[in-house]
């Protein structure tokens, strides 16, 4: 009965114990070494793959800002190096629009005052330059020139010279002389724009307001 019950059991501790006492084989050392070497190599490979990319250099984050600052500085320098003439001259389209008007208008017509909105930074620059270049011109002439320059702006030197010549030809010598003084105050080389026919008269017009 006891033997029958023992046979019915799925396992037997005495057999297990005998088995373990008898079975002690281990894998050969070279097999152990190969397996452990493969395991270590796999870990090293993983470590290399997981290694993070080197951190960016400290100055690298400033590169975009430095580049932007460089571009801005270079642009500023280029603007500063541009010739000032083109700033002093009115835009070509305005010249073109004014020239026919000056030709068609009567010679005695004073220059039309531009609307207030037309007074721009460019005009301020022009008036500043004119003051600076006026040199030894009398204060009254300078003030008149300044007023005239603002009023006459943006008349070109050629148109201005033509108008003076027209006043001279019409016999209004006083008005022509006043215009000439204002013209000279605005343009140091004003006489060069005058037609040959009036240069003799212009030479008789003094810079101090006396004919």
């Amino acid at each position, binding site marked *: 009965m006891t033997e029958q019950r023992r046979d019915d*059991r799925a396992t037997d501790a005495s057999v297990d114990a005998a088995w373990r*006492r008898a079975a*002690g084989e281990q894998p050969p050392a070279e097999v152990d070494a190969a397996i452990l070497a493969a395991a270590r190599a796999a870990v090293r490979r993983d470590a290399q793959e997981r290694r993070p990319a080197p951190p960016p250099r400290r100055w690298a984050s400033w590169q975009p800002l430095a580049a932007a600052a460089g571009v801005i500085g270079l642009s500023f320098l280029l603007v500063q190096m541009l010739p000032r003439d083109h700033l002093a001259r009115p835009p070509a389209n305005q010249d073109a629009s004014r020239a026919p008007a000056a030709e068609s208008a009567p010679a005695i017509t004073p220059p039309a005052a531009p609307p207030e909105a037309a007074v721009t930074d460019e005009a301020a620059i022009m008036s500043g330059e004119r003051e600076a270049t006026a040199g030894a011109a009398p204060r009254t002439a300078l003030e008149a020139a300044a007023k005239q320059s603002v009023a006459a702006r943006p008349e070109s030197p050629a148109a201005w010279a033509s108008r003076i010549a027209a006043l001279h030809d019409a016999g209004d010598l006083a008005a022509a002389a006043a215009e000439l003084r204002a013209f000279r105050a605005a343009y140091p080389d004003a006489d060069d724009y005058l037609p040959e026919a009036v240069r003799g008269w212009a030479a008789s017009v003094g810079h101090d307001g006396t004919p």
Partner: protein
Amino acid sequence: MTYIAVSAGRADTARRMTPADTGSAGESDESLMLAYARGDATAFERLYARHKGPTYRYFLRHTSDRGAADELHQDVWLKVVAARERYVAEARFTTWLYTLARHRLVDHWRARRGSRFTSLDDDGDAERPADGDAPANHADPLGLVIDAQAGHRLQRALTEVPAAQRDAFLLHVEAGLSLGEIAALAGVPAETIKSRLRYAYRRLRAALEDLQ
């Protein structure tokens, strides 16, 4: 050194306890495998030291061929290394390890078409004689002789046990798997495994009868 814990009257709870299970090593197989997956090579060394004997003997007892056992043992552990990042500790590490081992063994038999073994599910197969390995060391000379004789007889008897029964026995006694775990691994009902174990133990017990 491993320990067997067998609960009285319930064979399906029988389980080999590793030092980790008893707490003496402080780390479970699963935590060691996960540590290895994170790059701790020493964790693998401890895990391998813990399981290399049982896996090697599993193959040796099935093949009775040291060369084949060397090759299969190495292949399985290299698969463990290769699968380290895919390992998920959902089941016992041992179950996962012997699933790999069992598949590798079946592949081995399939590759050797001249072999009589093509399946671990065939309860009627028998194997060629064992080559008789050396028994474990023993302090008592008389005990050494008895153990050596017992070892030879058990190994010889095991070769005469059908492959499926032998597999169930080795998974139980070497891998320390429970009846339920062996059944899940083999894909058969627990009652089938219980029956296979019962037949295997009966044959092995008969081989030891005149020594007791």
